[in-house]
């Protein structure tokens, strides 16, 4: 009898030890990754359409997921300079519509030109210093359509490529069923064909243009993007999931972006009943129809 009890105890002890060992060995790591607050700086230098607009420098910080956010961060020193400029630009803090940004007080003097290299530095006593550099894309020209043209399904958008542009952004803005839809699509430079290569040819975004009432003007905006802003706007994050955006593009010491773009625009009208007409026939020579006949 005693032997039986002893055996039962030994067996129970064995199974308890096994269960404890499994429990101990199988604990999941649940501690979240360490979070460290950094400066969040977002600047975009614009040229082309609006050479003399105010260009804000958004400076804030990142927040732990458990923290309450603040919409301003005081005490930052923001500097932007280029070798072509006589002086370093210093930005002053302003709050507009509840958002604090640093605006250049000498805005009219920012002469960003294509191919120019600009530097950014943001210093704040509580955070690492942010440094960044951008090379502004060259100005470019939309060849077709021209302002005042009437376009239709099947027409192309043709523009001279901008030197230094990593990609292009086509902006849209239309009303459908009472709602206004705004946004853009970014295309990598190498994905856009063209013959000769310094010309880029792509289909007009008729998905949006078709929503424009015939006879009403529509502004078509194309922007050439430097590599930083292309990564920020249309790039793909290397680490976060696909539905998450790039946190940092061209910035060291913090998160955000220091980019530059060159915008061009033309105002067109849409003819909804003339599908199939090829715009390229209207252009002199050197271009081929987009639809290849050998398919």
């Amino acid at each position, binding site marked *: 009898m005693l032997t039986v009890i002893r055996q039962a105890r030994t067996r129970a002890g064995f199974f308890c030890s096994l269960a404890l060992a499994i429990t101990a060995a199988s604990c999941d*790591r649940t501690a979240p990754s360490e979070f460290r607050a950094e400066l969040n700086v977002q600047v975009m230098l614009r040229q082309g359409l609006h050479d003399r607009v105010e260009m804000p420098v958004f400076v804030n910080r990142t927040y732990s997921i458990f923290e309450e*956010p603040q919409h301003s961060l005081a005490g930052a020193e923001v500097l932007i300079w280029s070798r072509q400029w006589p002086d370093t630009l210093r930005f002053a803090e302003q709050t507009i519509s509840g958002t604090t940004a640093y605006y250049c007080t000498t805005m009219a003097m920012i002469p960003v030109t294509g191919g120019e290299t600009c530097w950014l530095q943001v210093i704040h006593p509580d955070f690492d210093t942010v440094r960044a550099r951008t090379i502004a894309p060259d100005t470019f020209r939309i060849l077709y359509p021209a302002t005042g043209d009437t376009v239709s399904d099947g027409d192309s958008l043709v523009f001279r490529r901008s030197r230094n542009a990593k990609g292009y952004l086509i902006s849209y803005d239309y009303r459908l069923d009472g709602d206004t839809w705004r946004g853009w699509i970014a295309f990598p430079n190498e994905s856009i064909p063209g013959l000769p290569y310094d010309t880029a040819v792509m289909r007009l975004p008729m998905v949006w243009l078709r929503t424009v009432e015939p006879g009403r003007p529509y502004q078509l*905006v194309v922007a050439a993007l430097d590599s930083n802003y292309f990564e920020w706007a249309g790039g793909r994050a290397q680490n976060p999931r696909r539905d998450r955006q790039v946190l940092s593009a061209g910035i060291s010491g913090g998160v955000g972006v220091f980019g530059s773009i060159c915008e061009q625009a033309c105002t067109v009208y849409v003819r909804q009943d003339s599908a199939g007409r090829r715009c390229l026939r209207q252009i002199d020579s050197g271009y081929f129809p987009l639809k290849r006949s050998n398919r």
Partner: protein
Amino acid sequence: MRVSAILAVSAFVPVMASAQPAAVSGFVRDRATGEPLAYANVVIEGTGLGAATSERGYFYIGQIPAGRHELSASYVGYETVRRQVELAPAQVLSLVLELPRAAVELGEVRVSAERAKFDREVQISATRLDTRSLLTLPRLGGEVDVLRTVQLLPGVVMTSDFSNRLYIRGGSPDQNLILLDGISVYNPSHLFGMFSPFIAEAVADATLLAGGFPAQYGGRLSSVLDVVSREGNSKRLSVDGSLSLLAARAVAEGPIPGGSFLVAGRRTYLPDLVLSGLGVEGLGYYFYDVMAKANYTRTPDSRLTLAGISAEDVLSFWDPQNRQAMDSKLRWGNNGVSLRWNRVFTPIIYGEVLAAWSNFRSRFDVDFGAGARAKFKSDLMDWTLKADLTWYLADAHTVQFGADAKYVGNGARFDYDTIEVVHRDTLVPLALYVEDKWELVAERIFLRPGLRLAFDPYRSRFEPEPRLGIKFRPGKNTAVNAAIGRFTQPTVVLNSTEALFSIHDIWISVPRKYRLPSAVHYVAGVERWFADDVLGSVEIYYKDFSNLLETRYGDYFTPPESLLVADGYSAGFELMLRKTQGRVHGWVSYSLAWTERQIGNEVFHQHYDRRHSLNIVATLPGLYRGIDLSARWTLGTGLPYAGAVGYGHRYEYYPHEHDYHWHWMFEYGERDAFRYPVYHRLDAGLSKVWRLSWGEVKGFLDVINLYNARNVLLYYWERAADQRPVRKSIGMIPILPTIGVSVRF
């Protein structure tokens, strides 16, 4: 000439080796339908000699002393058949044993297929689910799903209610070889992963080999799921139809001259009804499946089987105001055909030649009107030619050998105006294998050494894949098993398995710049029969993965040149207690597992790294007034995910406004920094059969997620009214009752 010479020699050698003893070979079949019975037990009474039938119902028993013997064949659910045989010295007697179905299932026969396999086979980490196991489980939307049942086995991780993907012992779904009657099925999913294309009523059995699988199988790193469809009733014509909330289904089977046929079809209608009921315009969806099989027996020793599958999802969406402005149709699915020739060349050589074709295709056609179209077309074509021979060399040795040649062609083309992307590659993998089932000490120690030589045409080299299985039986009811093996995989997928919903996988051959992904499996375990119908097993395993090709984290699709090379391992402990017959049958399975990968310096747990999984599956036939009850309960600890650890403002510039808008952007932690909450779910189903003069009617009521557990599918973030980010969750399937009826005549 060479084949016949080999056959002649092989037939001669054992006869020389054992001139006096006799042998018995043949098939065991269902008397009512003529279908072969796999793993039936055939015994020469009083001698200790016996065999389990093969998957095709074939058996061979050698070394029988000449004289008069009683031979018995038994199988669970069937009456035992006994036959007196008189064997002359060196005689080989061929028999076909037809077993009648038992009037009462709980009768005399206690030897199940599992027990027969336990007694005679060296199969490690193998679990077989027969039609009965598949059909008695609660149904989702009224449909039983083979893959969802497989998800309840130990070592298999289910990542969501919406996905039937199989993550087996730390392997990703593309590392599983899924076969239907020899046809490689590359993307077995419908409704974005909710269902598989296998119609459960047309399936005879599904065997999962979760690791250390035999040399007969190759081309995948993790596991094999071998689904075999039913052969059809060779004695009488019968039709079985059912209506459930989701779909209508019909199975017809019957005799044809020299054989039988089976045709099964299913088509959904619920999504269309739901969409129109909810007033959703401009959207349509359905899927359908067709499975068919026919077999023809020319002589008792020669049999031809033709099997096929056709399955497709069709999703349409259009502009409800003006269909000409936008009209799209997406179609994707599987087609496959196999032709199998089974032949008993001599009583000791049983052979099988298989030719199979499999095609996974997808066609997306979006018409924007006025000639503007976007088209996507992809095809995966798999041609297989395979020969397997089983040579009952001597009583202690059964040698299996064969060759396997494939042609795998992938093609994809995207065409939208100026954008045209074309991908095409082909691969011709070849393999030879040989394996011996060696009974080293009679009824005590079994070995299964094997070698598979896989030729990798891209790198022009042979990949040796040695395999070894060991079984030691210290007692009648206990077996200690071990297996080790190397596996390589010449094809991989380019899309992330982390996507919540999948339409299809994009397969390619492993590009030349990479080494072939490989894995080494180490498995050890103990099996014990606690009663005639209660089997318990414990297994531990370790899989060492090398040169895995992983998609970039966050990508839905990674181009071939950008795939990341990973190493890693998975390890685990599994426990299963299975009751195969009786008033209550089913199983309890528990798995403890770790899965880790390393890419460069980054070490992480995969998104399917579930530490603990518990499944309880029970069926109680005839619980009350002929009502059957079935239930399953699943419990799993949380799966890892990359959660947000921080956030900040993000300003977007809108050129049309020359202004900025802001929203939150989130900083995410490591990809396994967090885990979702514990997953648990109880499903239950009731069914009752009414037998009428013209046939039978079965009604069923199933409830998925009976106590409405709020399992989390994913988290996302929104901006609250006070601008703060707020975490929200999307749940999995809530309580979902379904009713249905099936008719058989």
